């Protein structure tokens, strides 16, 4: 049981969805060459982080789990992208060229995704999934989509449990022989899991129509905007406007004098 809730936890999920989404959107649309803006975005995210009661350690831990995936995807980009070569790597007969464009694209992916992940981690640690769904619903995201997500959230663990039970039943009777045979067994297991899921879906649908479901999803609206929501949202929007408008000046400045600094752009 938590003793006190932080500001971010008290906010309406809609506020969080809108403001975080707009931060991410602005960030993605900012060219990577504007390093100062990214510094400002980072500060903004840091400030948002301060509104929650999560320790930096907890945030970093979760970010560190997600970043390797991005890194793995992005690390080949500098070699693949064509353009002005800045550095060549020779391994016996193989020659790898790293281009300026490639490096910038790499940075683009890494910086933006890291900052977005930071924001996402903060959002997910301060909003429960059911609340998030309610927020989406109230923002007029199609009900069917929200319902699909809620079913996924509800049954993914049930399915994992079921798969776990199947695996356990298999491993209790598997003594290490017939290595190739095991692939067949795994195939059966996937089949069984599919049939069970399918039948469960049927039973759930029955449970729904018994309680009067007729294809239309109705829900109780539980949230109300408070003055805190308005303040928070205003704060985010003002900061974004400041950052973005600073950006406009910067673009002109680069256009006039700084273009040669950024080779290949």
């Amino acid at each position, binding site marked *: 049981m938590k003793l006190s809730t932080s500001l971010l936890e008290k906010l309406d999920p809609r506020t969080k969805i809108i403001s975080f989404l707009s931060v991410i959107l602005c960030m993605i649309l900012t060219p990577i060459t504007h390093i100062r803006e990214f510094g400002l975005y980072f500060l903004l995210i840091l400030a948002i982080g301060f509104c929650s009661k999560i320790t930096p350690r907890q945030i970093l831990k979760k970010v560190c789990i997600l970043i390797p995936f991005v890194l793995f995807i992005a690390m080949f980009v500098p070699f693949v992208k064509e353009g002005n070569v800045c550095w060549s790597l020779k391994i016996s007969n193989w020659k790898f060229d790293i281009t300026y464009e490639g490096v910038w694209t790499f940075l683009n992916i890494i910086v933006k995704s890291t900052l977005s992940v930071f924001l996402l981690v903060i959002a997910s640690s301060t909003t429960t999934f059911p609340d998030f769904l309610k927020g989406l619903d109230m923002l007029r995201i199609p009900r069917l989509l929200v319902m699909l997500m809620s079913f996924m959230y509800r049954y993914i663990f049930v399915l994992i449990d079921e798969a776990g039970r199947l695996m356990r039943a298999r491993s209790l009777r598997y003594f290490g022989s017939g290595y190739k045979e095991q692939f067949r067994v795994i195939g059966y297991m996937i089949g069984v899991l599919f049939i069970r899921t399918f039948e469960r879906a049927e039973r759930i649908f*029955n449970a729904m129509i018994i309680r009067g479901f007729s294809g239309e999803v109705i829900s109780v609206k539980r949230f109300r905007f408070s003055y805190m929501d308005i303040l928070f949202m205003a704060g985010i929007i003002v900061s974004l406007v400041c950052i973005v408008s600073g950006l406009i000046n910067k673009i002109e400045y680069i256009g006039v004098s700084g273009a040669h600094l950024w080779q290949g752009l």
Partner: protein
Amino acid sequence: MARIIKVSNLNYRYPDGTTGLKDVSFEVEEGETMVILGANGTGKSTLFMNLMGILDGDGHIEVMGLLLDKKNVKDVRRGMGMVFQNPDDQLFCPTVIDDVSFGPLNLGLEADQVIEASQKALTMVDLQGYESRTSYHLSFGEKKRAAIATILSMNPKILLLDEPTSGLDPRSISKFINILYTLKSQGKTLLIVTHDLFLTQEIADRVLVFSEEKRPVAIGNYKEILNNYDLLLKNNLVHQHRHRHETVVHEHEHRHGYIHEH
């Protein structure tokens, strides 16, 4: 008492050709608790599915004076709720309160009425304070009680309960029986499918026994049926068991609450 359910000559065959129900006829009075006893696979759950209009068998079903057909099925479901055997099928929403309010919302109640009905239902099953809990994290007993709350919030006249006590520990069973008593005292009509003789003895007014031929073979007062050993034995509801008292080994039917001399 008025007749509330009437089933006559109901037959059901599964799509793959196996018989689900064979010539089922019975009547239920308003406010009574009827236990449908039968071994595994005798068609008890299939009967419930037919009563709710999910499966469509041949025959005549009348609920609360309405003939169960395509036109009336929604009205029938307004007055009759069914609790599934597996609570994981019944609780499909992210949180308990979402599930409990699902039915009333679909009935078209106003928001505050929905909340009131849901709270009342949760109180009845002793789950106050569970509103925003995730169904997945509840214990099995709590899930079973939450499942019944999802139906109670719709305030039905008739409740169909499929194996309400299966998989519960003794304390959860007695808690569940208390809930059933409360419902009974409120004048609800209960139809309970089970093979639990203990539950039958506790709660039943009348008992309907299903045989392995998927049809009812006996109907009557609960005492009458529970004392008919031959009937219970023949229909797989009790079994002979052998046990030992020091040097004497003897066989008799296994039953609870049955004191015998040696």
